[in-house]
């Protein structure tokens, strides 16, 4: 098991290296950063001084190595616009996004998996067909549109829930969280629901497909022949068997949730990293873009690692070094 963990850690480091190169190339090499850095009416001297200062006269690979060196020291540069360290900026916005993403993934899992299992268990029933129809909607309707409708319905027409901003937070370890107060939850509700719908639809589909397949398997037949109730079979056998593929998707989806938070945060003015990247794109704030992308890549790699390790826990066939 330990060897496996080390092996996966090394792999993850390589992926991170590749991602940092891609991000560097993508953001720094395509397009001309000089245009952004230097005002058009600067003198030639200032131009050259700035270029030297940022190392832009160096060959690309040297620039990348310098970039990598700073990255390893946690230095992602300073925001052009706000003139504060990017790492600080991104990290201060991250908890809001993590809280939003985690809440929506949990909503998706706790509602989507049971619904999907039911739809797979009774594929022909009207309720299952309704569930599937709803999931097609959740899958295809764009997130931003659902957000608009949620605001229109619950904030404008019914006036039940707030539609913008984060509301009050409670500080724990110097980080503000919304979910600890009733009022904070009210602010969290609409954005979290908005972000969760896609996940919900996806988890419904996956658990339905898995359940359908497993219900026809010999494992279920044998369990039935032993007199187990269908409820026990679903709860103990099916849930356990579909949890293995679900964990993978869950992990990947958590990553894409962070990405889709961009849209939700914009609509609901949620002060997370998603809103930050949109602002930095519109203001061409390259260091912030790079910082955000590196961070997302890092989160992705970490999630993948955690997913793989969870795999090993869930599927005993993958556990190694077990004494037989």
């Amino acid at each position, binding site marked *: 098991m330990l060897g496996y963990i080390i092996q996966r850690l090394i792999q993850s480091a390589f992926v991170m290296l590749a991602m940092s190169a891609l991000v560097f190339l993508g953001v720094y090499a395509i397009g001309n950063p000089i245009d952004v850095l230097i005002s058009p009416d600067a003198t030639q001297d200032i131009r050259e001084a700035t270029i030297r200062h940022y190392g832009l006269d160096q060959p690309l690979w040297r620039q990348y190595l310098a970039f990598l060196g700073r990255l390893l020291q946690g230095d992602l540069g300073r925001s052009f616009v706000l003139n504060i360290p990017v790492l600080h900026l991104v990290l201060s916005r991250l908890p809001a996004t993590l809280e939003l993403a985690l809440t929506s993934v949990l909503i998706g899992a706790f509602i989507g998996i049971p619904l999907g299992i039911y739809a797979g268990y009774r594929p022909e029933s009207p309720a299952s067909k309704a569930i599937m129809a709803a999931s097609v909607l959740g899958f295809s309707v764009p997130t931003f549109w659902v957000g608009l409708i949620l605001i229109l319905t619950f904030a404008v027409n019914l006036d039940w829930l707030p539609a913008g901003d984060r509301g009050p937070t409670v500080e724990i370890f110097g980080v503000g969280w919304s979910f600890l107060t009733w009022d904070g939850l009210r602010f969290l509700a609409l954005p979290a629901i908005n972000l969760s719908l896609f996940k919900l639809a996806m988890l419904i589909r996956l658990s339905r497909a898995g359940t359908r397949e497993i219900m026809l398997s010999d494992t279920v037949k044998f369990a039935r*022949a032993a007199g187990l109730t269908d409820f026990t079979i679903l709860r103990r056998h099916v849930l356990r068997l579909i949890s293995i593929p679900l964990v993978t998707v869950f992990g990947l989806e958590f990553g894409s949730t962070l990405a889709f938070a961009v849209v939700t945060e914009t609509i609901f003015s949620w002060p997370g990293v998603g809103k930050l990247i949109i602002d930095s794109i519109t203001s061409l704030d390259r260091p912030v873009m790079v910082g955000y992308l590196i961070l997302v890549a890092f989160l992705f790699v970490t999630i993948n690692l955690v997913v793989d390790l969870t795999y090993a826990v869930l599927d005993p*066939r993958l556990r190694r070094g077990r004494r037989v």
Partner: protein
Amino acid sequence: MTKALLQVRDLRTHFETRAGTIKAVDGISFTLERGEILGLVGESGSGKSVTGFSLIGLLDPPGRIAGGSVVFQGQELVGRSQAEMRKLRGKRIAMIFQDPAATLNPVLTIGQQMVMAVQAHGGTGQGAALELAERSLARVGIPDAATRLNAYPHEFSGGMRQRVAIAIALLHEPELIIADEPTTALDVSIQAQILAEMKTLAQESGTALIWISHDLAIVSSLADRVIVLYLGRIVEFGPVADVLRAPLHPYTRGLLDSLPAMADPGQKLRQIPGSTPSPLNVTPGCPFAPRCAHADDLCRSEPPAVGDQHHGAFCHHALPAPA
């Protein structure tokens, strides 16, 4: 005469498909006494497995019992709700399947799966259930049963896995176990071991056994009586010794001739000519008529009947017994 454990009368199981109705089981009747071992033999598609699933009420849709009756210990099972059948399954009628690698859940320990099977019938505590599971494992010859409860299915060999499945079937000491080709996926040497053990276990506990197999040789070493199925109908039935020594039906004869163990040394193995026809268009007469060397117009129009209740064949031209 004491009441039989199981009486099946004219059982019919149909599958409604787009192409038409498949009569997988088409009027099967038999009786099973307590502690008796019955072999149910036939090729694939003969309806032997469907018969087993019909008895225990586990037909996959679109299959359904279209008619007939199954009386188990004086109670009619056909028409019972799934909830009532569930109380019977595992408790009084158990079933084991062909591939133990597929039947046991790979991500749960043997102990967890056995405890579930125990607790499916009444609120046995965790400790008592584990104890029962351990005893059952020991009974089917699994060494070191207490520690093996914590193992996962993939940590067992194929033969051991099937023993675990048998142990699960034995948990509640059922009156009847239906075994659907449980040794087919195993090595020949392990097959023989398990057959011998099953026979002993059935005798010790007085459990009746329906052994479903395509292999007459296996059944002959195990069963008291045998029923030969062809296209959902019984073609021949009788005590194993009689059927093997003096098969009455040309189909049974053909099956025996194709067995290496039954042929004389040096003699070529014979095949039954032709192949099993589609179950969608069965002839009105004897189902075997299209492949039978003895078939005539009578065979093709009239379904054969049978007189003798001990050993008989549904055939218009039953073969003469050897001298």
